């Protein structure tokens, strides 16, 4: 079997084996275009690799844990992460790798190459995978090249590629990947050329940057742009870029650098060169008999073709092509660094001060009319911060994911979420809150008369020191049942807080999962030692960014919860007045205003009744074993506590399994009491999973309908290794 072919030996019949890119390069070389030396690893090699290693079925098992349409983007990202790690850890069978190595060594000696995806599906005129699969520039040495072939294969299963193939209706089972390996051309200036402008058939377009064109392709470097007349081949317009950066080849890989001063004022192409590039694009169009999108580079005065493909219609939101959106899910390191500054220096302090300001205003003093106005004002403030949460904080969470990918690429760990261990033990606000709660519980534990008074509901003459500590806690974190996103069911008194404290005090304090710090230090050392020089500096920065991103993922909700609690406090006051005025004729008019405001805010999600075991035609169904994601390792058994509404949290008992729709950080105060955590919302990096990991509890996430399929008191077993939850005892 020929696992790898040289461009000059590629025939028409090989088209589907070598993919769109590989085939176009072979044709260009045959047509006399200047193309650098090219080898192509066929799609059969990929097929053989996934069959022999068992990856074919492992991937399908991974993707079929639940219906694809039911997966949130985070869950798809998790699938993609696990699949990528499978490719990194499963080496290519020796018989195949020997042939690949031999061909690569012979063709390139020790020269650096570019390893590119060449998808057989890309031929399909309806689909354009541009940018969805990965390419790697400046890779040297057969082992490194082989590793990057695996990475290109894995990119067939990236979150963006999975979403896109699903959208355009391609069968994932049939997907395969060919890989193009090309000697690198380290050009002085590079770009793309469209032989025909998609927006005006009489024109062509050239875009160009200094250095390599990776910067242009992924949007990091702004290009100069020329519009040309197709017939006269003259320049109609030139739009210069703000030339600041270029992408250059490092020792291995590429890096973004500041453009030398002497180049910032000069366009990368002069008129003669631009015309030269355009003629190349026209020649490619003439050769392929269709308008072409050509990637090119100038090495000194030699113009070299990197690739050529037919111009596909531009991505169109109206046609439901969301490829650009899928690609935007991933943020670059540079982008995240800027976002971090904004969040840490501006947004978080502003958010805290907004909450403090609201807290200082006493709503009980306001007239009914002013209270109605105040509720609307608070609603708007809450809305503003909720929008910022979605637009700025949620994308920042990608810092954790970016780190995860870099970590896995460097380490190839057995557990693709090992990297999370380097991020935990951060000073998360919810852990600080749980710590304060633990201290309060300690006071109750060590003071039997206090415990007795609390159990009996005699809260009039409590120890002032204890009450002071409770006040400090409530001031900082709310009274637990109140500060829950989406909940408008606050309780007036601290009853729920006391209930939780009594329950905590009745049992020994939980062991927070403190892995010996030397393990974490060793892990950190293992990660950082796989980089050198500049790369190492970047790795240190990335780890720091990931820690901040991880911490914020939790803190932002706590801060947002504080703002929401202030809105709810105003609503609570309004409710109190409505109830009182109900019996008094005089206040009716103003009460109507309040009722209107309160009703317009009441957006509680409908209560989901548990599944009722009613015989249907003599049959009763019962869930026995449910499958989700293994989000926190461990095995635990206990009675289920199903959280349908936030008030249920106060009933939580030590040793129960927390079953809920979605754990938000404001709810995680019960986690120290829990034996395990199960969540409907899916993901490995969601709050429930994060907090469970911090306490070393088994956790399973992403089980559809879990809160209706499991009922309070059911005996459940959480298998956090496999991601399964078993209901009922093992007896028949």
């Amino acid at each position, binding site marked *: 079997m020929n696992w790898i072919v040289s461009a000059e030996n590629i025939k028409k019949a090989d088209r589907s084996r070598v993919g769109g890119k590989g085939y176009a390069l072979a044709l260009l070389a045959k047509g006399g275009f200047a193309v650098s030396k090219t080898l192509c690893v066929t799609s059969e090699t990929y097929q053989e690799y996934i069959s*022999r*290693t*068992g*990856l*074919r*079925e*492992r991937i399908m*098992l991974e993707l079929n844990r639940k219906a694809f349409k039911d997966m949130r983007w985070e869950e798809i990202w998790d699938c993609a992460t696990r699949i990528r790690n499978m490719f990194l850890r499963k080496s290519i069978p020796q018989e195949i790798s020997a042939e690949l190595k031999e061909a690569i060594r012979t063709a390139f000696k020790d020269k650096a190459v570019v390893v590119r995806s060449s998808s057989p599906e890309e031929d399909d005129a309806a689909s354009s995978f541009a940018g969805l699969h990965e390419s790697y520039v400046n890779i040297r040495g057969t082992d490194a090249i082989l590793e990057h072939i695996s990475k290109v294969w894995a990119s067939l299963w990236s979150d963006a590629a999975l979403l896109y193939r699903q959208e355009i209706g391609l069968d994932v089972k049939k997907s395969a990947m060919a890989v193009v390996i090309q000697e690198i051309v380290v050009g002085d200036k590079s770009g793309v050329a469209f032989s025909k402008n998609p927006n005006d058939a009489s024109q062509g377009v050239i875009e160009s940057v200094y250095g390599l064109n990776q910067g242009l392709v992924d949007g990091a470097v702004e290009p100069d742009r020329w519009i040309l007349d197709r017939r006269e081949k003259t320049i109609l317009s030139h739009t210069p870029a703000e030339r600041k950066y270029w992408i250059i080849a490092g020792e291995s890989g590429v890096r973004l650098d500041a453009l030398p001063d002497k180049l910032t004022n000069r366009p990368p192409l002069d008129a003669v060169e631009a015309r030269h590039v355009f003629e190349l694009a026209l020649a490619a169009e003439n050769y392929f008999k269709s308008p072409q999108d050509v990637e090119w580079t100038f090495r000194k005065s030699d113009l070299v073709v990197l690739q050529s493909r037919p111009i596909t219609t531009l991505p169109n939101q109206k046609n439901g092509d969301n490829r650009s959106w899928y690609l935007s899910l991933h943020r670059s390191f540079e982008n995240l660094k800027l976002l971090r500054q904004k969040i840490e220096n501006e947004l978080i302090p502003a958010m805290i001060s907004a909450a403090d300001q609201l807290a200082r205003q006493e709503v009980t003093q306001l007239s009914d009319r002013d209270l109605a106005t105040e509720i609307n004002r608070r609603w708007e403030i809450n809305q503003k911060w909720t929008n910022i949460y979605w637009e700025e904080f949620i994308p920042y969470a990608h810092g954790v994911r970016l780190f995860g990918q870099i970590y896995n690429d460097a380490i190839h760990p057995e557990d693709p979420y090992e990297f999370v261990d380097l991020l935990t033990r951060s000073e998360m606000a919810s852990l600080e809150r749980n710590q304060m709660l633990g201290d309060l519980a300690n006071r109750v534990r060590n003071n039997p008369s206090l415990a007795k008074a609390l159990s009996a509901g005699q809260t009039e003459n409590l120890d002032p020191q204890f009450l002071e500590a409770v006040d400090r806690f409530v001031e900082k974190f709310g009274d637990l049942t109140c500060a829950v996103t989406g909940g408008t069911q606050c309780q007036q008194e601290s009853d729920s807080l006391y209930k939780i404290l009594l329950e905590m005090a009745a049992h020994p304090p939980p062991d927070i999962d403190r892995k010996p710090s030397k393990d974490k230090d060793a892990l950190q050392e293992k990660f950082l030692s796989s980089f050198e020089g500049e790369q190492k500096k970047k790795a240190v920065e990335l780890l720091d960014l990931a820690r901040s991103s991880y911490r914020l993922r939790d803190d932002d909700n706590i801060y947002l919860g504080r703002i929401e609690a202030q809105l709810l406090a105003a609503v609570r006051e309004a409710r109190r007045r409505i109830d009182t005025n109900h019996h008094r004729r005089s206040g009716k008019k103003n009460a109507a205003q309040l009722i209107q405001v309160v009703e317009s805010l009441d957006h509680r999600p409908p209560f989901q009744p548990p599944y009722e075991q009613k015989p249907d035609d003599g049959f009763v169904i019962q869930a026995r*074993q449910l499958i989700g994601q293994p989000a926190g*390792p461990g*095995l635990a058994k206990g009675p289920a506590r199903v959280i349908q509404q936030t008030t249920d949290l106060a009933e939580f008992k030590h040793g129960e399994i927390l079953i809920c729709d979605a754990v938000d950080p404001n709810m995680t105060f019960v986690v120290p009491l829990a034996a395990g955590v199960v969540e409907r919302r899916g993901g490995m990096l969601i709050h429930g999973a994060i907090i469970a990991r911090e306490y070393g509890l088994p956790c399973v996430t992403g089980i559809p309908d879990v809160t209706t399929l499991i009922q309070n008191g059911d005996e459940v*077993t959480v*298998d956090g*290794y*496999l991601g*399964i939850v*078993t209901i009922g005892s*093992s*007896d*028949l």
Partner: protein
Amino acid sequence: MEPTREIRNRLKELCNSQKLAVVSTQAGGQPYASLVAFVASDDLRSIFFVTARTTRKFANLKKDPRVAVLINSSTNEEADFHDAVSITATGTAEEIKDLEKDKVLTRYLAKHPYLEDFVYSPSCAVIEVTTQSYYMVQNFQKVMELHLDR
């Protein structure tokens, strides 16, 4: 009478060609059948499978280790009635650990490489069924027994 070597070869062939087997356990006199991915030892003295510890079959065989294992070549076609071969093995199940477990898993994963994540989960147990007898059914109703001398 077929020589035992021939029957043994047929058994081996079937065990190698089939990926799945049905394992029967029981609790309180109530039989319970489960589908498992299995591998057999070359000498046919052991059949191995892997199960999560939270399953009924695992709870059952902890209480009563006697099991029956059905392996067959049917393809859900009419021709199965004359063509398919089916064997039932009876024996005793026991969880294996440590070095022996690693050896078995290497063999197991060579046959079922896609189950790698599953078998290495700490919540899974590797089970060895030490076989006592095989009952081979062919040609619809012909039954031959093979008893292991232990």
